[in-house]
C-alpha cells in the first residue's frame, strides 16, 4: 500500500514537472485496440507498429493508455464480448480490426451508446455510429494501369495475375485493373490467371499460360505474386516485362537485384500494416474534438525506383514493407476526406 502511494505521488509530481505544451487535450483519454487475429506476418507487423507508435504517444502524454487486445479464436461472438469488456474497462475510444463487417454491430452500438468512439480499419464494421478507415482496392488496381500508361505511351499487352477466386478483395482489385484498361484503351489484357497471392502458385500459373500468350509488356498483380511471375518469365527465356510488385520482401529483393544488374524499372503498391497507427491517430483526433468524416480511405504504400532501397532496408525477411503513420499523416487523410 505504502509503495503504491509512493508510486502515485511520484507520478503526480512527474505530471506537474512536465511542460504543459506536450500535454494534449487527450492526455487523460485511453484508447484500446480490438484485434481479431494475429496469425500472419501482416498482422504481427500491424501489432508491432501499434506498440511502437502508441508506446511513444503514451510516453509523451498524448494519451493516457493505448492497450492492444487480440481475441484468441478469430470469431465475431468472441470479439463482440471483447468489445463489451472494453466498455466496462472505461476506454474512451476503441480502434477495431473486425472479424466480421456485421457480426459486431450490436457490440459497437453498445459502445457508441456508452459514449465511446469506435474507429474500424482494414476489417471495417457497417454500424453507422462507427468510423471506417477502408482500403480502396479498386483504386489500387487502377493506379497500376495509370503508372504503366505513364511509362509506355504506346500501350501494350498485359498479363493479369489475380488473387483467390471468390474473395471480395480479388474482385475489387481486378475490377480496378479493368476500369484502368477502359480508361487507357491502348492497353490490352491478353490473359489472366489466379495466383492466390502466393508466389509458388503464381509461378505455376504463369508458367502454364505463357506458351499460349503473345509477347507480354507488363504484368499487373495483386501482391504476393510478383516474384513467382518473374521466376516463370525468367525460366521461359522471354524478355522480362514490367512486373508491378506488391511490397513483399522477396519481390523487393528481386527488384533490387534486377535494378542493380540492368536498371530494371517498376513500382510496387500495397497496404502497410502500420495502418493501425493511422487509426490510432484518427481516434485521437476525434477525442480531441476534431470534426472527422465517418468514411476515410487508407493511403497506399507505394514504392518507386528511387525509394526502393530505403523501403527494402525497413522490410523484414518474409514480411511486407511497412510504414508507421504520424499525427500529420492522419490530419492529411482527414482533410482529404472533407473535400
Amino acid at each position: 500500500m505504502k509503495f503504491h502511494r509512493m508510486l502515485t505521488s511520484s507520478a503526480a509530481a512527474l505530471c506537474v514537472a512536465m511542460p504543459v505544451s506536450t500535454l494534449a487535450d487527450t492526455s487523460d483519454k485511453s484508447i484500446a485496440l480490438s484485434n481479431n487475429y494475429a496469425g500472419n506476418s501482416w498482422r504481427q507487423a500491424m501489432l508491432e507498429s501499434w506498440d511502437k507508435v502508441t508506446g511513444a504517444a503514451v510516453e509523451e502524454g498524448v494519451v493516457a493508455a493505448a492497450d492492444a487486445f487480440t481475441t484468441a479464436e478469430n470469431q465475431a461472438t468472441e470479439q463482440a464480448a471483447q468489445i463489451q469488456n472494453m466498455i466496462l474497462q472505461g476506454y474512451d475510444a476503441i480502434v477495431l480490426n473486425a472479424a466480421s463487417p456485421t457480426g459486431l454491430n450490436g457490440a459497437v452500438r453498445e459502445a457508441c451508446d456508452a459514449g465511446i468512439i469506435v474507429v474500424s480499419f482494414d476489417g471495417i464494421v457497417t454500424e453507422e455510429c462507427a468510423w471506417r478507415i477502408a482500403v480502396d482496392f479498386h483504386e489500387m488496381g487502377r493506379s497500376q494501369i495509370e503508372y504503366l500508361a505513364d511509362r509506355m505511351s504506346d500501350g501494350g499487352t498485359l498479363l493479369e495475375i489475380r488473387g483467390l477466386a471468390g474473395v471480395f478483395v480479388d474482385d475489387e482489385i481486378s475490377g480496378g485493373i479493368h476500369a484502368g484498361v477502359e480508361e487507357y484503351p491502348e492497353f490490352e489484357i491478353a490473359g489472366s490467371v489466379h495466383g492466390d497471392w502466393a508466389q509458388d502458385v503464381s509461378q505455376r500459373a504463369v508458367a502454364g499460360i505463357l506458351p499460349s500468350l503473345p509477347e507480354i509488356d507488363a504484368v499487373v498483380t495483386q501482391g504476393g505474386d510478383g516474384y513467382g511471375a518473374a521466376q516463370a518469365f525468367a525460366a521461359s527465356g522471354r524478355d522480362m516485362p514490367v512486373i508491378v510488385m506488391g511490397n513483399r520482401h522477396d519481390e523487393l529483393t528481386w527488384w533490387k537485384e534486377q535494378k542493380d544488374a540492368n536498371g530494371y524499372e517498376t513500382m510496387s503498391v500495397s497496404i502497410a500494416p502500420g495502418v493501425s497507427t493511422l487509426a490510432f491517430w484518427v481516434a485521437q483526433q476525434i477525442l480531441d474534438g476534431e470534426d472527422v468524416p465517418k468514411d476515410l480511405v487508407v493511403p497506399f504504400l507505394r514504392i518507386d525506383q528511387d525509394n526502393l532501397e530505403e523501403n527494402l532496408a525497413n522490410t523484414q525477411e518474409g514480411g511486407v514493407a511497412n510504414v508507421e503513420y504520424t499525427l500529420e499523416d492522419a490530419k492529411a487523410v482527414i482533410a482529404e476526406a472533407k473535400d
Partner: protein
Amino acid sequence: MNRYVSVDTLRLALPALSLAILLVAVFWLQPRAMSYTGLNLLFNLAVPIALATLAQMLIMAVNDLDLSIGAFVSFVACVTATYLYSTPVVGILILAASVGAYAVLGVIIHLRNLPAIVVTLGMSFVWGGFAVLLLPSPGGQAPEWARWLMTVRPPFVPVAIVASIVAALLAHLLVMRSSLGVLIRGVGGNARSVERAGWSVIAARAAAYGLAGFFAVLAGIALVGLTTSADAGIAQRYTLLSIAGVILGGGEFTGGRISPIGAVIGALTLTLAGSFLSFLRLPSDWQIGAQGAILIIVLAFRLLLNRLEARNK
C-alpha cells in the same frame, strides 16, 4: 468437508459457487461491472450460449453428443436475419422445419443405431452450407422484436439476467418436473428398462432432439437480436462452448445425469471466465490455455465429489 451436506447438494452447489467466485473476482478487478449496465454487458452474449448449452444438454441427456450446434445456430441466425426479417411467415416455416429435421435426426440415429457424433458432424456441414447459401456475405437485418427483446431495459434486473433465469426455469420444468423429461433422462440412464416398462424410446429420442432444435433456434434468434445481423460462421464456437457449459454445470456425458439450471450457470461461468481473463490483461496467446485451466480446476473438484459419492455408497 461438512458431513451434514449431502454430496448431491454439493454437486449442484459447485457450479453456482464457481460462478460466484468468478463474479466476485470480476467485480474486484473492474468495479464498473457492478452496475445494471455492467451486468448486462457482462452477460448479454451469454444468453445465446446458455440456450445453445440447454440444447446440447438435451442431446447429452440421451447419451448422445451434438457436434452441429454451432453450425445450426449460425444457420438459424442467417434465417433470422433474412427470412424472419423480410417475410416472417416463411421464416417461421423454415425454422419449424429445421426443428422437425432435428427430431427426424434423432429417429434416424436411433433406428439405424448410428453414432450421433458422426451424424451430427456430417450435419454441421449441411447446416453450414445452407447458411452460406442464405448469406454468402455477412449481412441481413435483425427483426425489430428480436432486437427489442434483447435490448429491453426492465427495472432493477438487466435483461441478460432475466433471460437466463427464464431459460433455466423453463428447461428445469421441462426436464426435471415433467413426465417427458423423466422419460428422456430415463433413456440416457437405462434405455432398455424404459423400453421394458412399455415406453417408446424412439419417441423419447425424437422429443429430446426436437426440443434441442427448439432451444438452438431460440439461441440463434437471441444472437441476432444482440448482433443486429448475421454471417454464416457467426456461432462456430458454440459447439465446444455448449459441451463445456453442460459439463461445467454438473452434467455427465452418459447416464442421463444433467442439470438445466447447472447448464445455464455453466454457460454464464464460461462467458465470465473470458471477461475475467481479459480484465486480468492476460495476453491472448495464454487466454485459451487459461480458459482450459479454469475448466480443469472445476472438473477436478467434480472428480473429488465423484470419489466421495462412491465412498458413501
